[in-house]
């Protein structure tokens, strides 16, 4: 509680000079595809940003998103931003447990006051079996979500599960899992501004950058048609893919490890969903800019898009249909033959009758 209340001072206390902070803002501005002059104004706003209370709720998730945020070989400004945002409740990372942890959460919410805190949601919320599939401390996830976001300023959905339903939502969705947005639309939880930071998991700098944007401007960044922050989700993988020239020339790898694959050709034929997937993987990449799936030789799965688990095989190209049972076409042919034969037979009968009468 005696931590400095402004981000700039907080960082200085941690041994991060303003110069280092300027460098972070330069990198963040570049990652958000903002003009270079933006870095200075971002630094000015961000250094006087107040500590924002954040409650992190984990529901039906695999913890991959939380792991993605904390994956770093050395402390970076991303992890420091998380230090700064006063992560008042995060059940994997926090030291407290049980009732003490729940109390910490309630106190943080009360302290922050209405509209004074952010809620980060990780994982989908199941409605099946009265919500019993995901419950903690005697309350269902649905109840916890509703109670927690009641007075929140905004909800940041981290990962495809909370944004769009993700893997629990995939066919046949046995737990009746829903995304946060779906719950709001159905009126099952209060409606609040939502930012969907989708991805399975999302790229760490995307999560940090979205938070940084919120801290800098005190408002939500510009969102796309699925409520994802446009600075990171404005372009498809295909738009910025380095293998694009091969796509244009029609040079596609036909099998993993064939000649084309070894030459780095386009992975469209091997099922790459790059053209319909909006994310920053092709520019920002993963593991500190090391690589991304296409660069490592595997097609994009489309993990930041809704329903990607049910979008047909990961290895069937986008232009392939998703036909159910091919046997239906045989049945259709048989049915057509039957109708045609029937029509011809009726015609013959008419002729025969006319001959009899005439």
């Amino acid at each position, binding site marked *: 509680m005696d931590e400095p209340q402004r981000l700039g001072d907080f960082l200085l206390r941690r041994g991060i000079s303003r*110069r280092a902070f300027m460098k972070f803002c330069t990198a963040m501005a570049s990652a958000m595809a903002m003009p270079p002059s933006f870095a200075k104004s971002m630094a000015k706003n961000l250094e006087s940003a107040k500590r924002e209370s954040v409650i992190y709720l984990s529901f039906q998730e695999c913890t991959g998103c939380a792991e993605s945020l904390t994956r770093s*070989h*050395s*402390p970076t400004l991303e992890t420091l931003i998380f230090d700064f945002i006063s992560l008042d409740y995060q059940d994997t990372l926090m030291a407290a447990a049980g009732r003490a942890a729940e109390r910490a959460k309630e106190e943080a919410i009360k302290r922050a006051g209405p509209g004074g805190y952010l809620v980060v949601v990780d994982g989908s919320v199941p409605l099946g079996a009265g919500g019993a599939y995901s419950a903690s401390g005697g309350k269902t996830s649905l109840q916890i979500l509703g109670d927690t976001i009641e007075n929140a300023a905004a909800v940041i959905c981290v990962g495809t599960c909370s944004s769009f339903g993700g893997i629990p939502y995939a066919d046949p969705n046995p737990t009746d899992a829903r995304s946060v947005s779906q719950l709001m639309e159905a009126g099952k939880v209060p409606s609040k501004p939502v930012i969907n930071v989708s991805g399975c998991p999302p790229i760490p700098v995307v999560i940090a950058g979205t938070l940084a944007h919120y801290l800098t401007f005190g408002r939500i960044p510009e969102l796309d048609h699925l409520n994802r922050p446009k600075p990171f989700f404005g372009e498809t993988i295909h738009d910025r893919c380095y293998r694009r020239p091969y796509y244009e020339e029609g040079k596609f790898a036909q099998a993993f490890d064939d000649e084309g694959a070894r030459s780095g050709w386009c992975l469209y034929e091997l099922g790459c969903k790059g053209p319909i997937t909006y994310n920053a993987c092709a520019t920002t990449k993963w593991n500190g800019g090391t690589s991304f799936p296409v660069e490592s030789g595997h097609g994009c799965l489309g993990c930041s898009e809704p329903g990607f688990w049910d979008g047909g095989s990961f290895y069937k190209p986008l232009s392939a249909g998703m036909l159910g049972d091919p046997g239906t076409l045989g049945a259709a042919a048989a049915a057509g033959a039957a109708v045609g034969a029937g029509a011809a037979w009726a015609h013959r009968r008419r002729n025969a009758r006319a001959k009899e009468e005439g």
Partner: protein
Amino acid sequence: MSEEDWEDLPQPVVALLREVAVLLDRLVREGEPEAIDLRALPVMTPEDLESFRDALGTGEVHATVTALGETTVRETAFPAVWWVTYYGADGDIVAERIEVARVPDILVTQEADMGAGLRALVEALPEPREGGPAAPEGPSIRWVED
């Protein structure tokens, strides 16, 4: 690379060099610094990027900043045109810019850092001892707690 060879440079490289000239002109006439984010350019082949780097050449200044990872600052052959590469803590490039300014932003000392440094320096200095040599005459250290 001599100026005559610039005739043979590929079109995207010439366009970039022209933009640098425009920004430098603005700096000279109006004193406004600017930067070009190399990551935000349309897809440029590695060869073109190399040609661009060669065309700009090197100047008199080469600086390394260590702040949450390294940053290398290289003055090009054209004064006030700097090639700045920002590395993350893991050694990955987090940003790369051509900065057209008297001094690139990262080299300039920030106000708050100066204040923090002054405070630390004064706190570290020993108090003048009783009976010891008097503090030398001169301006006293004076700062305002912010």
